[in-house]
Every structure is written in structure tokens, then in C-alpha cells.
């Protein structure tokens, strides 16, 4: 294909603003799929994605379109993950494109996620085509949304296309804008091969399927290629494009988007952002923008039943095959036995992995309190990074602790600004800027410790704004904080899974709240249970779970025995689902409640 007739683009949109419906319409209009084959939300493959209305994995789709100019075009739609946890993946997907469609809901207006992703796209110098979708809605407020696009995103109103993906309105105009406004791909180093890896997936039968955008040169089966960062060579077995089902092609040439299959065994070998080049004639420079992705959020994941350790390990391996951003390594906890320390890109990523382990792999797991990476400077000037409170050195040898901060964009209804600022303040945040978006919403720009938004910040935000608020964030580096480790002891034994690092000003309140909450969720046992909260070894709160009252069957005669035995067996099973720490059985719920107590 002549690169002049290729257009590569993606779609930027907030959840529910209609990205998926619009994508489906584009596929339909270009005849890529027939109406009757259309499954709702075709691009989002995983159930979990569909449920949460987010895309975790992107599939590029190739469409053929005959423009009004009479020319045939090849359009590649690269779907992007919607959430900033996957900011790096988003940035790689964006850099595989020359343009982006920006979808804004005519009733909801610009959202935090939209702003964050538009900033990313602008940094990549993409041509952005703004689209107001859902103009058919009775509560659509087009003039106000137009103003927001001009004011917040700094795009001229006359560039905006009006559409209703649901009604099929504006679709042709969008396709025409794609071929007219988005530049054709250009080659910079035509003598060699340079293809950007922007995603990879694991297929049980074919191994790793790598999604690529070819910038320079050409690739076909038999080509010997090299991953420039990993410095590993492979022979290309197959190339193709998604139509939307994978279709083999003879070659992938300059400007094209598609997939490559070589004998790559795990997705970990193919780093997103790496450049594929020719083994025999490597390119001078790899494509820019490669980063090693590092997890930001860590949590321990343990099997409830310790005998499931090996099985859980297998499941983690399978998850990682498809998600190289997820990292795990074996660790052991005094309270929980053998398990794994897992690293995630962010909160959503963590929730998704935990949820997939539970649902897709039916694993009964306990996830410990999440942690960020703290930078510790010891009194002897030695520095170390700690992602698990258990490994925090003794306070006497710590000179300072630094924690990661984020810049958060929070959009909320005007009426809730007071409550929201109070929440930000409570989370040790500072609001730098308040911007009026329209007559009902404002955007707060704040700086906050990542640690403070790890657990329930988003839930609180949703409840304050009665579901209308949204938030996004980006990392802005490390700052020193007065941080301490809070421990929880059960019958005198510290339960490491309950430990967390918190700001000193909050440690005592949190310790008290935690001890009280645990008292409520730990059922009474044969013996009394003491729950204590301690800061640096000093007990600051104590609660007692009283020993069990009466638990005895009154009548136990000939006719009752089988039934009673089954009852005892059931009670015993119930206890198996609890984690026994020393002589105390702690229900799964307790580990979840800890996350909720703030």
C-alpha cells in the first residue's frame, strides 16, 4: 500500500462517552464488519473490560474506505486503553498514530480522563479531530461542550464534528476528516526496517502476537528481525492485520499497522515501545520514547488456603503472559504464609488483576494493603526503596522517608467544591488551581501523595459528587514526608498483612479505627482475642474480641447425629476459608475491611 493512502488513528474518550459505539460504526460503515456479525462492543474482548466500560487491551483494526475524492484508503484504528494507569501503553499506542479522534459526550462534557489523554496526544504532536457525540440526547448541551473544548482543550470550535454514533449521524464526516486532516505516514529511515511494538498478546496456539506499526521498510515471513532494546533476534513466521479477525498478509510495509508472529514465547520478551529492525541491517536509531515500565503500586497476594500456593503461582504466570506490566515475585508473610509481592501500574490495574484472579481463575485470595515505593535515607546515608511496610527499617536508623506525589485533575459539580477540597486537604493534598468548566462543573488541580489516593479516594470522590465527579492523575516525583509504620497485633503477634506506612498525623486515628473495625469483623473465638495498634512498637489502641458465648447443640440423640455432624463439618469448612494467624481465625473480610478503614 502506498503510504499516502494510509491513515493511522486512535480514539480518545472518557468512559461511556461512546468510544466503542463509534468504533463499531466506523467498522460497519467501511464494511469491515457486517451489521449482523456485530457483537455489542466489538473491540472490548474481556468480560471485565465490558463490565467496567474500559479497555485494557488494544486491538488495532484495519479498515478500507473509499473517500469522496474517489481514492481508496487503508485506515488503521488503534484502540487505546482508557485509563491513565496504562499511560505508557497509551503513549505507545498514540505514537503509532498520526491522529486521534477526541470524543466528548454532548451531555457530560469534558472529563478529567479526556484532559489527561488529550495532553498525551498533544505531546505526541497528533492531529486531533474533536467530535461531540450523543447530540441526539435530550439533555445534550452542545454550546456548553463546544465552549469547554475551546477553553479547556484549546481547540477551535469550527473543527468540531457533531455526531451521534448511536443514530449513525456524522460517521461519514468523521471518516472524511480522518483522510483529509490526519497526515499520511512518512518514512524517516527508508533504508532499513523500523517497526514500533505497541502491544503484545499471548495466544495459546501461536505464542506471542505482537502488534506493530511499521515506520520504515518492510517485513514479511522469513525476515530475520531484531528487537533493538532486548537485543534478541527472531525469524518472522507470519504477518497480518486485524480485519477485525486476524488475516495473514504477504507483508507489512511502511506506514502500515498489523501483527507479527515470530517464535516468541512470553510477552515479557517483547517490551512495549521496543523497535523491530532487520538483523542483517539494523537501523541507526531505534524509534524514540521507549521506557521500561515500572510498577507504581504494590500489594501482597496470598492464597487463603496455603495448599493452593502452586496453583496460584500458575495463574499469576498465565496473567503475566498477557500483561507484562504486571510483575510478581514470591514472598512470605508471618501471618499469611507463602504468597507473592505483586507490582501494578496503578490502582485500576491492581483491581483488575485481583478481580481476574478471583473470577477467571477462581482463586480465593487475600490482597494486603497496597503500598507505593518509599525512598528511605538511613542515618548512615545509605538509601533504599521499600514497597512493603514489613521491610521498613527500624525508625531509629531512618533519617528521612520520601514518598511519590501525583498531580491530580478532579472534576466535580460546583456545589461540591467545598466538600471536595476538604477531602483533598484531609488527604494531605494542596489545590493549586480551580477552573470553572461550565455553569455546573469545576476542575481542581491538586498535588497529593499517591499513598493517599491508593485505596478509597475514588470511591469518596464518587460519593461526594453523587457519581458525577471524575479524577485522573500523573506522577510528579518524590517528596519528603513524616511517615511512620503502623502495625496491628493480634494476640500480641504482629500481623504483617495489616501493616501500613502512614503520615504521623494520621497514624493514631487510623490505628484506633482499624483496631475497632477488626474487632467488629473478627468473629468471637474459643478464647478472647486482643487487637492492638502500635506505632514504632508503642501500643496506641487496644480492642478485645470477647470469647465465644454459648455454642452448643442442646439435643444430640440418635436421630440428630448425622445432621449435627454435617453442621460441624460445615463450620469446619467455614473456618478453612479464614486465615489462621497463631490461634486466631481471621476471616477474608477482615483483610478487605482494612483497606476500607480510613
Amino acid at each position, binding site marked *: 500500500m502506498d503510504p499516502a493512502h494510509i491513515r493511522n488513528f486512535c480514539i480518545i474518550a472518557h468512559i461511556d462517552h461512546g468510544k466503542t459505539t463509534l468504533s463499531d460504526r466506523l467498522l460497519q460503515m467501511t464494511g469491515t464488519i457486517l451489521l449482523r456479525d456485530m457483537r455489542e462492543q466489538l473491540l472490548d474482548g474481556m468480560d471485565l473490560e465490558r463490565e467496567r466500560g474500559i479497555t485494557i487491551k488494544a486491538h488495532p483494526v484495519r479498515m478500507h474506505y473509499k473517500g469522496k475524492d474517489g481514492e481508496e484508503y487503508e485506515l488503521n484504528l488503534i484502540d487505546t486503553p482508557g485509563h491513565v494507569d496504562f499511560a505508557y501503553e497509551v503513549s505507545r499506542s498514540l505514537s503509532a498514530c498520526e491522529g486521534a479522534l477526541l470524543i466528548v459526550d454532548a451531555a457530560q462534557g469534558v472529563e478529567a480522563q479526556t484532559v489527561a489523554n488529550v495532553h498525551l496526544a498533544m505531546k505526541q504532536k497528533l492531529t486531533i479531530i474533536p467530535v461531540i457525540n450523543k447530540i441526539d440526547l435530550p439533555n445534550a448541551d452542545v454550546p456548553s461542550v463546544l465552549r469547554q473544548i475551546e477553553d479547556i482543550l484549546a481547540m477551535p470550535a469550527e473543527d468540531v464534528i457533531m455526531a451521534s454514533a448511536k443514530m449513525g449521524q456524522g460517521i461519514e464526516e468523521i471518516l472524511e476528516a480522518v483522510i483529509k486532516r490526519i497526515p499520511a505516514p512518512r518514512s524517516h529511515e527508508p533504508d532499513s526496517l523500523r517497526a514500533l511494538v505497541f502491544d503484545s498478546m499471548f495466544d495459546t496456539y501461536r505464542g506471542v502476537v505482537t502488534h506493530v506499526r511499521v515506520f520504515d521498510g518492510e517485513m514479511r515471513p522469513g525476515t530475520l528481525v531484531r528487537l533493538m532494546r532486548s537485543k534478541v533476534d527472531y525469524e518472522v513466521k507470519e504477518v497480518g492485520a486485524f480485519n477485525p479477525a486476524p488475516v495473514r498478509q504477504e507483508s507489512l510495509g511502511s506506514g502500515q499497522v498489523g501483527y507479527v508472529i515470530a517464535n516468541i514465547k512470553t510477552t515479557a520478551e517483547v517490551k512495549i515501545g521496543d523497535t523491530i529492525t532487520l538483523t542483517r541491517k539494523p537501523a541507526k536509531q531505534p524509534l524514540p520514547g521507549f521506557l521500561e515500565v515500572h510498577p507504581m503500586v504494590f500489594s501482597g497476594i496470598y492464597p487463603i488456603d496455603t495448599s493452593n500456593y502452586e496453583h496460584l503461582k500458575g495463574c499469576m504466570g498465565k496473567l503475566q503472559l498477557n500483561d507484562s506490566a504486571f510483575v510478581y515475585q514470591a514472598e512470605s508473610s508471618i501471618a499469611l504464609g507463602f504468597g507473592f509481592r505483586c507490582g501494578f501500574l496503578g490502582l485500576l490495574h491492581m483491581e483488575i488483576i485481583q478481580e481476574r484472579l478471583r473470577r477467571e481463575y477462581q482463586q480465593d485470595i487475600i490482597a494486603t494493603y497496597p503500598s507505593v515505593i518509599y525512598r528511605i535515607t538511613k542515618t548512615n546515608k545509605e538509601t533504599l526503596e521499600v514497597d512493603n511496610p514489613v521491610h521498613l527499617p527500624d525508625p531509629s536508623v531512618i533519617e528521612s522517608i520520601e514518598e511519590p506525589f501525583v498531580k491530580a485533575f478532579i472534576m466535580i459539580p460546583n456545589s461540591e467544591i467545598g466538600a471536595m477540597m476538604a477531602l483533598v486537604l484531609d488527604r494531605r493534598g494542596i489545590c493549586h488551581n480551580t477552573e470553572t468548566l461550565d455553569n455546573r462543573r469545576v476542575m481542581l488541580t491538586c498535588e497529593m501523595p499517591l499513598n493517599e489516593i491508593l485505596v478509597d479516594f475514588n470511591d469518596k470522590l464518587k460519593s461526594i459528587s453523587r457519581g458525577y465527579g471524575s479524577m485522573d492523575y500523573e506522577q510528579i516525583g518524590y517528596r519528603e514526608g513524616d511517615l511512620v509504620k503502623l502495625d496491628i497485633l493480634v494476640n500480641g503477634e504482629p500481623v504483617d498483612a495489616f501493616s501500613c506506612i502512614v503520615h504521623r498525623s494520621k497514624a493514631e486515628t487510623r490505628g484506633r479505627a482499624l483496631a475497632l473495625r477488626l474487632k467488629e469483623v473478627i468473629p468471637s473465638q474459643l478464647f478472647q482475642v486482643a487487637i492492638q495498634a502500635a506505632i514504632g512498637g508503642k501500643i496506641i489502641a487496644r480492642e478485645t474480641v470477647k470469647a465465644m458465648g454459648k*455454642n452448643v447443640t*442442646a439435643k444430640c440423640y*440418635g436421630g440428630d*447425629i448425622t445432621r*449435627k*455432624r454435617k453442621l460441624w463439618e460445615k463450620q469446619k469448612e467455614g473456618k478453612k476459608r479464614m486465615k489462621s494467624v497463631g490461634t486466631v481465625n481471621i476471616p477474608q473480610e477482615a483483610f478487605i475491611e482494612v483497606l476500607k478503614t480510613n
Partner: protein
Amino acid sequence: MIPAMGIRHLYIHVPFCPHICPYCSFHVLPARREGARRTVDLLIQEHRSIAHDLHPDTIFLGGGTPTALSTEMLRELLAQVAGVPGNPVEFTSECNPSTLPLPKAAMMLSLGVNRISIGAQSFDSATLKILGRTHSADAIRACVKTARDAGFRNINLDLIFGVPGQTPASWRQTIEAALSLKPQHISCYGLTYEEDTDFFRRHQQGDLKSDGALEQEMFHAADRLLTREGFHHYEISNYALPGFESRHNQSYWRGEDYYGIGPSAVSTVRGKRITNSRFDGQGWMPEPAENLSRDTLASERMALGLRTSEGVDEADFASHFGFRPVEKWKREIQWLIRGGLMSDNPTLQLTQRGREVADEVATHFV
């Protein structure tokens, strides 16, 4: 003398009651003549079918209310039962305070019944009312007198504690009232909200409330008041004057074999447990047998034996099951002993605290 062969314990279930109590989960039907006739015929038939394998030391006629049957029908049933060889040293019949006229009691005694168990429940009218009982404290007194006049010398009173609204004081008064009637045996049952009862639903809905601490207090009060009067607390819910322990019930707790006849009755014979279906208007049938493995029987022996004051004798246990309890449950036993819930001297048994949480303890052995 050659020991007699055959199963030594027999339970007979008579599924009729003049009135059905809202807390009772046993298989009971309102007493109606036709159903009763058919039931008695079938009970006699079922008894005949097992008679060759029966040599009872103890018989327990329960239900329901066996005395809800007419004197004539009850006589027919007892005549069949008495016609089988055996040496029933203990032959109990349950009754309600209002279902034991003197002629019926005399007839029962003449056909071998030698122990009467009266469903007294309480001497407090408010408690009786909540329990849905229609009798009065005076009816209990009259019933005991009738039994005694008829010649019964072994009388049990069933009492219930932990009833909503019941106070520790009223519970103590009930115990005192029971003691004043000089029974040989008293059962004190903590009220249990059994599934499929009206009480269960009302408890679920929060309409009836239980109070663990209060129940605990009443459990202790019973132990204190009754042992002071010479009663032996020989099982969690049972107290007896020395020599009047229920041998029939002890046989269950010792893991001995027993036949049960009648609808919903259970037999445990030579490693098989068979439960009869409920009475469907026509009759009842044995349901598929449960094969009890050695491990299951051993677990049951522990859970039930621990409930009694005689406890589980390790050597006796080993002779039945081929291993001593400590070999299988070393960690559990050590832990329970250390926690003051169990003792192992001279047999394995629960302490007073252990008895309060006997079900929790039992989960360690199943």
C-alpha cells in the same frame, strides 16, 4: 450364659401431637384418628420385621407425643413391643402434661414402660405462652402425680431455657418448681432455633432475639441449682439422681447400635445409618443408607462422648477404632486442654467452659 444376640436399643417414633409447638423441628403431625390407626399398624409391622435382630435393653417411645394415641392403640403397640424377647431395664415414654390420664398411665406401666418423660418446659405462664404450650404449671404437677399414682418411680421433666423474655430469676423459679416435684431426672435444653420452624423465621426476622450471655448465665444456674440437690450433670443437657441416668440416651453417646422405627426415625446398625422418610399419609420408607466409615464413627464418638461426664475412654476408643484419639488429633487435643476446654483425666471430657462451646470443640474432630 451365652450373651443374647441382636441390637440392644430401640427407638419408636410416634409422629402425633395434640398441638404443634412453634419451635419444634421433629416430624410431627396433628393427631387424627385415621392417620394414627395407619401409623400404629405400620409401626407394629415394622417392629415385626426387625424383631429377629432385636434384644432390647432400652426402649424409647418418643415423638411427637406417644400418649396422644388413644389408650387402645397405644396398648396394641406396646403389646407388640413387649412380645419380643429382651430385658428392657429402661423403657421410656414421652408424654405431654395434658395427655396422661391415670388409666393410660397404668396400662403403660403394665406393658413394661417404666420411665415417663414429661414435656414440662417451664413453670412460668409467660414462658409457656411464648413457647406456644397450652398447658399450665398446675397441669405439670397433676401429670407428675398421675404418673406416680400409676406406679412410675422414674420420672423426667424436660425444661427449656433461653426463651425470649425469660429472665434468670424466672428460670431459677422453674428449676425450683421442678425440684419440688422430686423427679429423678431433669433435662435442661437451651432453646435452639431450628430451621423450618416458625421460631427460626421469627428469629431471622429479628422478631425473636437470643442473648448468648443470658443463656450462659442460665446454663450455669441450672448446673449450680441441680448439682446442689444431688443431681449429676452427666451430659450437656441432662441431669439425673445417681443411678437414674438415661441408659437409652447414653447408648447414643457411647456409639452403640440402635434401631429406630417409625416415620423419620433413624437406625444405626453395623456401620450403616438408615433414616426413614416422613409419614406421607400412606406410610414411610427407609431412605438410602449412609455407610459410616471408621473415621466417621470415630469422629462421632469423640463429638458425642465429649458431651458426657464419663467422656471418652482412650483405651475403650482404641479397642473400637484401632487408634487412640491422641494419635489422630494430637494438636487439637493439646490445644483444647491448654485452653481449658478439655481435660484428659481420667478420660477425655469437656470442662464446664468446654460444654458451653461443645459444637465449636466438635468441629476440631470432624
